């Protein structure tokens, strides 16, 4: 069981959260201006980091807040 540090509620059990996946992904400002390869990259390609991974979490069954954390995907340890 992960204990996830919600910035609003503190450490809470993982079952209260939904994982939002890789962070820092901005939707292209003008999707219709992209070619298919660039659009596919936005939609489907991820870093899939083995090591430190910046990711989004949502405290869905708690305060509802969305936030970003860095976690080591090898050990599940959160680092600040």
């Amino acid at each position: 069981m992960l204990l996830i540090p919600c910035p609003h509620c503190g450490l809470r059990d993982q079952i209260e959260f939904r994982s939002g996946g890789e962070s820092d992904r901005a939707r292209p400002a003008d999707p219709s201006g992209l070619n298919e390869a660039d659009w596919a990259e936005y939609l489907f390609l991820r870093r899939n980091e083995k090591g430190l991974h910046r990711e989004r979490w949502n405290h869905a069954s708690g305060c509802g807040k969305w936030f970003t954390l860095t976690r080591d995907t090898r050990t599940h340890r959160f680092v600040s």
Partner: protein
Amino acid sequence: MNRFSAFSLLKEGFNGHRGWARQWRDAVPKARYDVVIIGGGGHGLATAYYLAKQHGITKVAVLEKGWIGGGNTGRNTTIVRSNYLWDESARLYDHALKLWEGLSDDLNYNVMFSQRGVLNLAHNLGDMREAKRRVNALRLNGVDSEWLEPAAVTKFCPPLDISRDARYPVMGATLQRRAGTARHDAVAWGYARAASALGVDIIQNCEVTGFARHGGAITAIETSRGRIGAGKVGMVVAGHSSVVAEMAGLRLPVESHTLQALVSEPIKPVLDCVVMSNAVHVYVSQSDKGELVIGAGIDEYLSYSQRGSFPVIEHQMGALLALFPTFSRLRMLRSWGGTVDICPDASPIISKTPLDNLFINCGWGTGGFKATPGSGHVFAHTIARGEPHPIAAPFALDRFVTGRLIDEHGAAAVAH
């Protein structure tokens, strides 16, 4: 290598079983191979075997970071089936199932393939409609599939609770009689033994650390056991596909997650088929040792840890007891996790790549074991000919650009 037969078994029986030789050579890397397969799991070993057997390419090495079959091949729940909805998937998985049916003979190694039947339960009206649609789609594709009403379900699988007041009432099930289970370790060992006998070098404790490139092609592979020259390279590394692909300068549309399973203490035979439920999300069968083998879903977050989280186990045990109240006093023996690489459309990638001589086979997600022979067979063809096998062609990497996805996620709900 000894050939297994009733006669050799009898002879060794009189000899105190002292005459059995090692089943495959633990090879030392040579300077160069025509084809190097990265990844000594079931899919990689099968690829090497079919390269040697069907395409006459025997200067082949299989590089394995740990020991063969020590990754997802040894960590799955051993279920084999081909009841996939879409035409492309049905062709691929049924190709594999047909190979399973002759595999023990082909390899001269007992992979303990048992066609005991797989039930997929329907618990509500939506499930029933989806299940019947699937039965019809499968039949149109020539794959065996039946719809069973509740009375027939309980006849086929007596321990299942089909009472009307059950927490998840069983309103029927699909049945694939040709589906079942196989001994997962034996699949790795059998392919390794047969490939080794044809001249393939199986090199363990050999981790890939980088690639030497010249222009648009790979010339050599850097490994923890030195540099190995390669004419062609096949990458079959499941959960670590992104990591190895990045060494070759490629990005893949896969994400790695933990999938876990667990077994109960061994008990006398109680369950002689495989039961799956997508709606309550658990799948269970009984191994020949007597353990119940129980699986469910992935952890939602990215992970390379090979350790699953407890809430998933809690959920799947709750689901199991709702279906089989009689299992309530069973103790669980062990649990484990594996790292699976999941594609956005939950279908695999079997493909050429932007590099001329690099081929990739990945993205099998939570359901790769069942496809092992078929995956190796079509991937060997793809590598040998430099063009995709017709069955593999729809699973090319460029489908994420063209948009021709094979969306089995929605089609199969969750379990694969």
